[in-house]
């Protein structure tokens, strides 16, 4: 087990360094004048160009530049926006909103996705199964931002059940955006759960559990479900990337002052330091979450733990 943890942590660090290097190379080392790139559409005035050169030590060799960048990231320095605001500080103020949104989204994915998957697998080819399959197909094909607009119009404006946008109403404000963001992967979760559980129900150890005279509930919950949820957990970990990407759109549509909204705004305005800063933070989140998932995996599956 210690060896497994060590190797996973090392791997995570490697991925983190590699991914930030890729972002760094894309931002600063690809052909083209980085100063002009950072200055965006406006002409770079000499003072600004000088500041940028000094800030990023552009006269040094590439690896040294990257080292400085990484050192900055480690120390929580992600640079400044054009208006001179500290990016790390700005994101720090916004991370709580994004975190709440992500929590709601994850809760919806698990409740609806896993729930529908179980229902579907237990009532295979029944009415509920057909319903779930149509629902998942719709969920897979209707882009989540369309869902967002439709819900905003129907639930928010026409019915007035939930706030249309903003965060003034506390946790009520997060229900609709959370559902929308969750809907990004809910259908996949439902499909995966259904497939895994259907397969597990055919396993000998599940039939053995039945033939021992256990109740259906116990057979499903204790024997079949536990094994079928392992891949679902892995999937949810990998989907964090999609969740973070989705937050950019969701927060913009629902006007939630989170990191995603900052990203969308920065992308639109061409404000590169913020863009690079947000992506760096998101990569960090992704790697850490997947490290945790790997460790959880070992807890759930003893074959890994003792391997």
């Amino acid at each position, binding site marked *: 087990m210690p060896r497994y943890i060590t190797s996973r942590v090392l791997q995570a660090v490697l991925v983190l360094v590699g991914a930030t290097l890729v972002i760094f190379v894309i931002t600063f080392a690809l052909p083209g004048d980085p100063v002009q790139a950072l200055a965006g559409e406006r002409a770079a005035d000499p003072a600004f160009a000088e500041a940028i050169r000094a800030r990023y030590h552009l006269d040094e060799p590439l690896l040294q530049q990257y080292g400085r960048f990484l050192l900055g990231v480690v120390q929580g320095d992600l640079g400044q926006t054009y208006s001179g605001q500290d990016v790390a500080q700005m994101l720090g103020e916004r991370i709580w909103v994004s975190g709440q949104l992500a929590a709601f989204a994850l809760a919806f994915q698990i409740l609806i996705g896993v729930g529908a998957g179980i229902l579907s697998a237990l009532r295979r080819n029944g009415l509920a199964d057909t319903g779930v399959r149509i629902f998942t197909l719709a969920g897979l094909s209707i882009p989540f931002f*369309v869902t967002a607009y*439709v819900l905003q119009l129907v639930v928010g404006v026409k019915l007035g059940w939930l706030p249309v946008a903003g965060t003034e109403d506390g946790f009520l404000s997060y229900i609709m955006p959370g559902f929308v963001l969750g809907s990004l992967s809910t259908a996949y979760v439902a499909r995966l759960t259904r497939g895994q559980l259907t397969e597990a129900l055919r396993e000998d150890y599940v039939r053995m559990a039945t033939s021992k005279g256990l109740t259906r509930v116990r057979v499903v919950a204790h024997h079949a479900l536990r094994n079928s949820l392992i891949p679902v957990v892995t999937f949810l970990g990998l989907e964090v*990337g*999609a969740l973070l*990407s989705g937050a950019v759109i969701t927060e913009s549509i629902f006007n939630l002052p989170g990191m995603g909204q900052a990203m969308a705004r920065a992308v639109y305005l061409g404000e590169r330091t913020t863009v690079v800063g947000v992506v760096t933070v998101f*990569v960090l989140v*992704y790697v850490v979450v997947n490290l945790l998932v790997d460790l959880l995996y070992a807890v759930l599956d003893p074959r890994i733990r003792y391997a």
Partner: protein
Amino acid sequence: MPELVSATGVMEPPAIPQRKRRGHWQAVRRRLSRSPLFYLSATLLVVMVGMAAVPALFATADPHDCDLGRTLADAGAGQWLGRDLQGCDVFSRSVYGARASLGIGIAVSLVTGLLGGAVGAAAGYFGGWVDATLSRITEIFLAIPLLLGASVLLTLFGTSGSGTWTVIIALSVHGWPQVARITRSSVLEAKQQDYMLAAAAIGCSRLRALARHVVPNSLGPWLVVVTTNLGVFITYESIISMLGIGLRPPTISWGQMIHDAQARFLEAPLPLLGPAVFLSVTVLAFILLGDVVRDALDPRSHS
């Protein structure tokens, strides 16, 4: 639009030449021909490809003939989905948007399919340090969320002209690792089967074993992911255009229409919902196709 030719190639998996495995592909073709969902998705796709190829046949008006005086006009005779902020016919613009959306979806699927397929196949087949290196690189790119990575590229390099090529490159750079991962595991699985040992035992060359056994057996999962990805990348294109960093006028795309319509959505939903329906139907068709192909390739996976 050369991509469209390859689109029909994807739609007809049995056409893939597999001389020695004729029985297998015949069975696949038979299962496909028996599936009503295959015909449904094929019909939808033929209509969409038709729109992309000759939009004038489907459109009711010139998409560039806009009348600012009739901005956000309601649906009515001759303008089924009303008019957008610029006073352009939403239905006709949606029809014309099919070309860019489908084209980008197909191009990115092909590029990521070939790149990811090659990387994954090499990693899975050669193993050892090749696998270790390629897998680490794949993991690193996988850690950068596709949409965010593409956004960085597009923000930094801007979009010149219509932005078609930049969007294709940006999505491809970050879209291949997923294909690589799936291809690697299916190649690995095919390689570890006992029949590979048997092939080696009877003196079958490595290359021949690769061509006869590994490729046909790992082609299925690859085909499924590439097909399903068509819909995924079409969605990504629309998201990027929605953020305002994707395709630019005069190119018409669904994402860009949605981008233009979102500000006034609550008062005039049709200019947004129109392209959204086109988008959803196209994605649905590709997902159904992916499902049908998967079931036809591996009947055991079917319930």
